[in-house]
């Protein structure tokens, strides 16, 4: 995915920062053990959030280990793993498989085709184990592709396909918390989709690609409207999150939801200010 769902480091306690890193390294290690080097390459920060959220909600037994890894060979690193890590690693592979498949279909990318071939077997096993999630991933991405091909102008309509995909992945099991988890995932998914469109606007314009923000881009209020839409998504997402009885690592979760998700946004704003300053 995109790596937008990240921590805001300056406000995180040291112990929480190391714990976050350990969950991240745990996912990396699980991906490598289950799916090899290629699996490991699909690692992103976004999915670490889901691990911490579900671990906090279900209070799953977590194992702490120390490992060396290829990225940091000199020093041993803590890893935190549990059943949720396995689940999220599987979902990550399913998403990456579809991502590579799209790359191959859209751009005839050879790397995409190679990736698809290597992950196909793993993907089939995951589909058998999680038919509910995998069929929704497939359908949502198909709907998203159709909406994009039709250059859909209603932002809610395009973004909701990605929201529905995330909603399904967030539902680890269908129980008492399903409704809330679904909404947290749905609005976070919409946030990610809209933010990605905002982030890619200039690039899409150059490549003559579809971007859902085209309808509002000409307006003077463009920036304000984007920020307002993104805020609305997080407002709905967090108002549902606050209903879940998450106690463990809640400081990490709140750090991500209330501040971390804006890290890239603030970076883009600062970059623009810098450019404008140079022009003057």
């Amino acid at each position, binding site marked *: 995915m995109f790596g937008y769902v990240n921590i805001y480091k300056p406000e995180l306690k040291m112990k929480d920062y190391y714990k976050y890193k350990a969950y991240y390294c745990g996912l990396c290690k699980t991906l490598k053990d289950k799916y090899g080097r290629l699996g490991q390459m699909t690692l992103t920060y976004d999915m670490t959030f889901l691990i911490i959220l579900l671990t906090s909600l279900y209070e799953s037994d977590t194992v702490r280990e120390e490992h060396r890894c290829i990225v940091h060979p000199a020093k041993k690193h803590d890893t935190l793993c549990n059943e949720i890590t396995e689940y999220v690693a599987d979902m990550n592979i399913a998403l990456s498989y579809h991502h590579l498949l799209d790359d191959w279909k859209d751009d005839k990318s050879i790397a995409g085709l190679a990736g698809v071939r290597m992950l196909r077997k793993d993907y089939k096993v995951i589909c058998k184990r999680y038919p509910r999630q995998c069929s929704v991933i497939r359908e949502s991405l198909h709907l998203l592709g159709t909406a994009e091909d039709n250059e859909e102008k209603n*932002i809610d309509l395009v973004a909701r396909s990605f929201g529905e995909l995330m909603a399904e992945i967030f539902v680890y099991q269908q129980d008492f918390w399903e409704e809330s988890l679904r909404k947290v995932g749905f609005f976070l998914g919409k946030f990610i989709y809209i933010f990605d469109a905002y982030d890619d606007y200039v690039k899409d314009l150059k490549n003559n690609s579809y971007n859902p923000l085209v309808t509002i881009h000409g307006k003077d209020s463009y920036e304000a409207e984007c920020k307002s839409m993104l805020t*609305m998504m997080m407002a709905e997402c967090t108002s549902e999150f606050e209903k879940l009885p998450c106690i463990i690592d809640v400081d990490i979760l709140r750090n991500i939801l209330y501040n971390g998700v*804006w890290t890239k*946004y*603030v970076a883009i704003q600062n970059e623009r200010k810098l450019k404008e300053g140079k022009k003057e």
Partner: protein
Amino acid sequence: MIIDPYKVLSVQQSATNDEIKKAYRELSRKYHPDSYIDNPLSDLAEEKFKEVQEAYEQIMKERENGYSGENTFYNGGSNPGNSEEESLEMKAVYNYLTAKYYKEALRALSGITQRNARWYYFCAVANSGLGNNIEAVNNAQQAVSMEPGNPEYVNFLNQIQWRNQRYQNTSNDTGRGFGSGNLCCDLWCADSLCECMGGDLCSCC
């Protein structure tokens, strides 16, 4: 409905959300069905477990909109409309909405040509229920601008506005926020946000 959900969780009404979550965790662990396998008390424990879950859910829903209760539409707060003035089609939409059949409501709404404030309000409720929150705000703004004195429409917008404000406040309190770092400017932004939602934070601007 549980009459006193706070009593079930053994917490004060003034307890913070996090205190309620801790109380819920303790009690749900205590009565969890897994701890009562082959135990004569298992039925009783299961009943208690369900009650604890229900009480927790009820408190969280009540608190969602700043203690103002759930969306008025479902609590009978919405006026079913004057039976003579309201068309049959709009009555059908009203029934869909109270039953939470949002897709059907939107479909029925798209076939109605007379688009008054109430039509936009119904669209807002349906879109909000489906998670189309951008559309919902646009519809609700339209409804309020067509009929600014209608408390039901204004209240609907205020609830969305309240959630946005809560998010931004928490964000500012817990980190850099993503405000401008300038109180005046933030106030101006908040006021503009309120105004575009039909309210007014400070009357001077």
